[in-house]
């Protein structure tokens, strides 16, 4: 089905509707003062558009837009697996949760891609510094000590858990399956 036209066609002869507009009150405007409704031209895409920005950067666009806006941001175009997911997300409108959930998922994958990108450039990210550990040390030593202690305890616990679940050495297993001794009958 074609999209409905937004042009103001005389769909209804309002003069034929008894009482049409008699209670229209210009003072009844919950958007005052942040919206100047006197400048509302109705549902018409009729403004003089700014010059259109030419770009060779990939710009994903909401399907709710009639046309691409005149200026666009060119930061960090979609790339990699996260970029593929972002492109997929833009098949759905902004009112569809899938659109946003896919974007959130892409954001998380993008974090891993960022680390991989750093490593591929020979750079090991200093994650504690990126998380502001220096400020934490300066202003919240107790909190930092608590975090370190918790992290250490969790790591140790995980280590012990994994160590405990390791397959036992072959010799130990063999003992378990050794058949019971058979005593000869007297």
């Amino acid at each position: 089905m074609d999209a409905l036209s937004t042009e103001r066609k005389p769909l209804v002869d309002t003069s034929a509707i008894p009482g049409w507009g008699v209670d229209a009150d210009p003072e009844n405007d919950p958007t005052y003062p942040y919206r100047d409704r006197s400048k509302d031209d109705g549902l018409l895409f009729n403004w003089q558009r700014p010059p259109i920005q030419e770009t060779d950067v990939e710009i994903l666009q909401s399907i709710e837009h009639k046309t691409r806006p005149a200026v666009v941001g060119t930061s960090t175009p979609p790339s990699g697996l996260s970029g593929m997911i972002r492109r997929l997300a833009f098949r759905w409108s902004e009112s569809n949760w899938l659109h946003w959930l896919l974007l959130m998922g892409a954001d998380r994958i993008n974090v891993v891609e960022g680390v991989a990108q750093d490593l591929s450039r020979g750079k090991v990210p200093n994650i504690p510094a990126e998380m502001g550990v220096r400020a934490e040390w300066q202003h919240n030593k107790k909190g930092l000590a608590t975090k370190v202690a918790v992290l250490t305890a969790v790591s140790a616990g995980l280590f012990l858990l994994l160590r405990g679940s390791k397959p036992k050495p072959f010799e130990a297993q063999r003992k378990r399956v050794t058949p019971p001794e058979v005593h000869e009958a007297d």
Partner: protein
Amino acid sequence: MRAMDYRGPYRVRIEEKPMPKILHPRDAIVRVTRSCICGSDLHLYHGMVPDTRIGMTFGHEFCGIVEEVGPEVTNLKRGDHVLVPFNIACGQCHFCKQGLFGNCHESNAQATAVGGIFGYSHTAGGYDGGQAEYVRVPYADFGPTVIPDWMDPDDAVLLTDVVPTGYQAAEMGGIKKGDTVVVFGAGPVGIMAARCAWLFGAGRVIVFDHVDYRLEFARTYAPAEVYNFKEVDDVVVFMKKTTDGLGADVAIEAVGGDAEGNFLQTLFGTKLKLEAGNAIPLHWAINSVKKGGVVSIVGVYGPTGNMIPIGNVVNKGLTLRANQASVKRLLPRLIDHVRDGHINPKALITHKVPLEDVADAYHIFSAKLDGCIKPVLVPSTH
């Protein structure tokens, strides 16, 4: 040039990046002199805003020196010191014509619900922001305003977002003389909303938060009655009791999705991110305002959904009003207020940090360390 670089939730650093270029005839390149970290930047920093890409530069509250202008920018010249509204607005579309500069239809390809915002994810247009030495400013012939000679740049940089957002929060409340106004959130915007409520004639201003040093700041700066919501049994019952059982005339929500104060909201909104943030302040605002009252919302939430008692909005006959601040519309009035001493924006600034230390600045602000209310980044090129 050096710029802030997002690496994932709770991780940012400084990177060497290419100099921004003029990409459109109405662009300008601005050398940043000051750039704030906004409370809403923390929503990005915490990974709560969809389509926040690794490598992006944040920062929508900045001022700086014009270095270069596109051929259609005739009202600015090289060397002008400008404050740059956080909204990227063309000034001529259907919405800009009506003064809705936060809702420009010609600046955000990725979404229609919000106009372009500097450094605020691709959901707000995918523009690199001002936490950098240089920044591209689209529609520079419309948005940036030359800082008056008499104005301190520390005041000017707060006119790009915090002051207009706080002011518009109070304005949207439709406050009448003598009204009781309750503000949820004692961050910079909440504090400013409380201050501005008096300008509209409020008779009583109450602020809720859970961070004592911020409440103390709000108590003296706004000034306001302040309460730590963790020290009252039930915020809504408390509000009813303190307003003769009726509720406040106006409630302002100035927290957004990073709120604290309710286990389920924190679990689903903040931790699991199944909601667009923790909406407990919005919940309190709806339930503690009186019947027929107004709830004004400036807290930033994500684009999905939130658990709020919408049935009570209907049953109480409330008016909900909300928007991103329309900075350009408000600037003339706010500049007058600063000149006349009605608002002292720079008093909010508690930390001035070199841009190079951006990771520490984010952590201090996010973790509410060292009495931080408002951190400002200063590039070494300034």
